[in-house]
């Protein structure tokens, strides 16, 4: 990346990034040239034609057709170049190659859920194999969101009534940020995800076991990470304050009263049921708005969440 690219643009991590950045840099040069002309002329005229006295006489020039045509047609020509270039590069980004690796992404307030070709699911982290174009088919369960990968220069709104899509091919394996770019309410700015572009071995391991670092992680720590990444944090507080769901502080071993009048002690089995079938028992004073996490969390994560809740005294 050259100086201007480093100044204005994030790292180029997809094949498409360079294509977009070339247009960006071209426009930057056009802008620099025009701005320098305007600013230099304004400053020069202000100094050169400074008023000398009340008797200054100025020429009465009303117009000059040739000059006006020149300064209309030259910019018109330049903006048409930008238009065609911008459109042509846009169309490239619209049509995913036929052999693309396909992932289904679902957005909801305020998390990203991904479903892989083999049925594996993950939350807020997208693993894709390196070396293949990736097509992400997007849909929303509630309001508008936008799927924005700045390092790949791709973005698309995510709609509740229609599928939209993006595609990209990463140029190097690594970890990239996914941001929601369409305002969606309270935790819009925390609706972040990570895209892992994995080597084949890493990707296969992910499909088999979930991310590698889980193996060595203490369960409570894995639970804390799951709490933050799977979206629990949006509704369940850790400090005892009431959110859209009950706080997790000190609930292990306490007794929950339910809207149907029954009650139960919060233990391992109850926590597991609440994760897999949240509508089964709804705590008094709350609405049953939690989605099921069945199939979304691996065994290790559920155990981790239970261990984490136990640790919150």
């Amino acid at each position: 990346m050259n100086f201007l690219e480093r100044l204005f643009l994030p790292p180029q991590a997809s094949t498409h990034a360079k294509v977009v950045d070339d247009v960006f840099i071209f426009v930057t040069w056009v802008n620099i040239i025009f701005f320098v002309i305007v600013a230099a002329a304004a400053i020069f005229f202000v100094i050169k034609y400074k008023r000398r006295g009340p008797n200054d006489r100025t020429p009465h020039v009303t117009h000059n057709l040739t000059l006006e045509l020149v300064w209309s047609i030259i910019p018109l020509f330049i903006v048409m170049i930008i238009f065609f270039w911008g459109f042509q590069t846009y169309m490239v980004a619209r049509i995913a190659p036929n052999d693309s690796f396909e992932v289904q992404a679902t957005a909801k307030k305020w998390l990203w859920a991904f479903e892989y070709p083999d049925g594996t699911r993950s939350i807020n982290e997208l693993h894709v194999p390196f070396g293949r174009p990736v097509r992400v088919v997007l849909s929303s369960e509630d309001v508008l969101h936008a799927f924005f990968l700045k390092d790949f220069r791709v973005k698309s709104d995510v709609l509740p009534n229609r599928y939209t899509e993006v595609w990209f091919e990463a140029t190097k394996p690594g970890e990239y940020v996914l941001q929601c770019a369409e305002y969606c309410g309270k935790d819009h700015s925390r609706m972040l995800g990570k895209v892992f572009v994995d080597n084949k071995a890493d990707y296969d391991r992910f499909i088999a076991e979930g991310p590698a670092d889980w193996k060595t992680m203490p369960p409570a720590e894995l639970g804390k990470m799951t709490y933050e990444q799977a979206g629990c944090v949006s509704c369940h507080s850790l400090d005892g304050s009431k959110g859209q769901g009950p706080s997790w502080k000190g609930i292990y071993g306490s007794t929950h009263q339910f809207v149907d009048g029954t009650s139960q002690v919060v233990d391992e089995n109850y926590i597991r049921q609440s994760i897999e079938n949240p509508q089964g028992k709804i705590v008094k004073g709350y609405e049953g708005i939690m989605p099921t996490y069945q199939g979304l969390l691996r065994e290790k994560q559920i155990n981790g969440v239970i261990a984490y809740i136990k640790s919150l005294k």
Partner: protein
Amino acid sequence: MANATSTHTHTGTSQPQLNYLTENTSLKDWLTTIDHKRLGLMYLAAVMAFFFVGGALALLLRLELLTPKQDFMDSATYNKVFTLHGAIMVFLFIIPSVPAALGNFVLPLMLGAKDVAFPRLNLASFYVYCLGAIMALAAIIGGGVDTGWTFYTPYSTTTDGPVGLMAMAVFVLGFSSIFTGINFVATVHKLRAPGMGWFQLPLFVWGIYATALIQVLATPVLGITAVLMVMERAFHIGIFDARLGGDPVLFQHFFWFYSHPAVYIMILPGMAIISEIIPVFSKKTVFGYRAIGFSSVSIAFIGFLVWGHHMFTSGQSDLASAIFAFLTYLVAIPSGIKIWNWLATMYQGSIEMRTPMLYAMSFLLLFAIGGLTGLYLGAISVDIHLHDTYFVVAHFHYVMMGGTVIAFLGGIHYWWPKMFGKMYNEKLADIACWIIFIGFNVTFLNQFMMGSQGMPRRYWTYLDEFQRYHIGSTIGSWILGFGLVMAAGVLLSSLRKKEYDAGDNPWGSRTMEWETISPPITHNFEGQPVLRHGPYDFRVEPTPATVAGGRH
């Protein structure tokens, strides 16, 4: 040059002549006035009050964004504050700012008219504005709204809070805007002074006229959209809600069908002011009068056909995106033409850098940046990356604030001596202008950088890598805020003067509003003024201000 003072006298008497400020000064006289000048001042006070509120909210937002963690407001509050900042600035400040405040005051004077065509409608427009403002305030007191000023569905139809009331406030404010527009169109058509043809109109009038046409033609769509959105919330009629068979993207089409032309409602009057200031302080006739006038009208026309460029990522068809991008670049040309014309006007001029001219130069540079950065956003592939980032925020602030607001401030400094007959301290006003210029650039250049680096807008927290830009932007906002307060202080302190010391035509202008005394009498002119020379004809001496018993 006429250098009349406060002691204009009727022939044969020694009583000081009453002007529109000193005649009939009871509260009731003010509240029921149909004098366009008083209504202009009342609008000026109202829009400036909202500018202050909107600006204070912006400073709070910037302060919260100093660090990525929570500093003093939680995300829900932040969302309400940025919604209010946008809604207040757009609907209560910028849209009425130049047309309703300065336009009301200046337009009839420029035409040599005694008032606007429909003075009572003008008064009604002000009260409708007040009603809309009260409804908006009620919505704020009633819990606030967190939809963003754009009210995108389905978020806006499902979120809590008095969204319906806020949308109805926008609906009502739209009528105020329509009334003003109708009034100005009729005034320009019917009340021009004898001898004043369409091509002897000051360019300010051309700009306001083009704006008024957009106000009349586009604002009803906003009203209909607001009503549909409220109906959707209240009765679930299924226009925009996907679950009921509606289409949320349809809302965006409706909304931008108004709100893109509204961008020109905001910027054309700013350009119109600059087209007055630059010839006057260059003492040279404006270059390409017809080109500037026609470019205003063509911007107004093409501006109706580009709304889809706000929606390149929305999933609209690629063909639609292509057409909208193409038309967007076409609209860039007339804007560019204006810049060349202003520069050509300065060429070989006799340039005096008084305060209004300083603002005009500030406008020229800031608007150039605002306009040129639009070239990125019209290139669809680049827009995909930049859409909904701080780059867009910076771009439209360069156009709206660096363009319209700076021009508005320039216009206030230009017409202030006419409005109040008193001159402000120009040295301090110049310093304030510089501080505003510097603060503005520090604030928003940082936002360009973070935006193209990938910082999304409407974010309460952000990735650590963006913090350095946020710190810069927040510091800039303090400089900017200080400059604006200083400019207001300099202007207002001039009102404490006992004497009318400004003179009738302090800048040596050639347009007709300077051919009456400062401040003008209630009926603007003694008798009917007649056009003696073109609006920018600096070959002739300015026509002196009329006093009683003078020329007719």
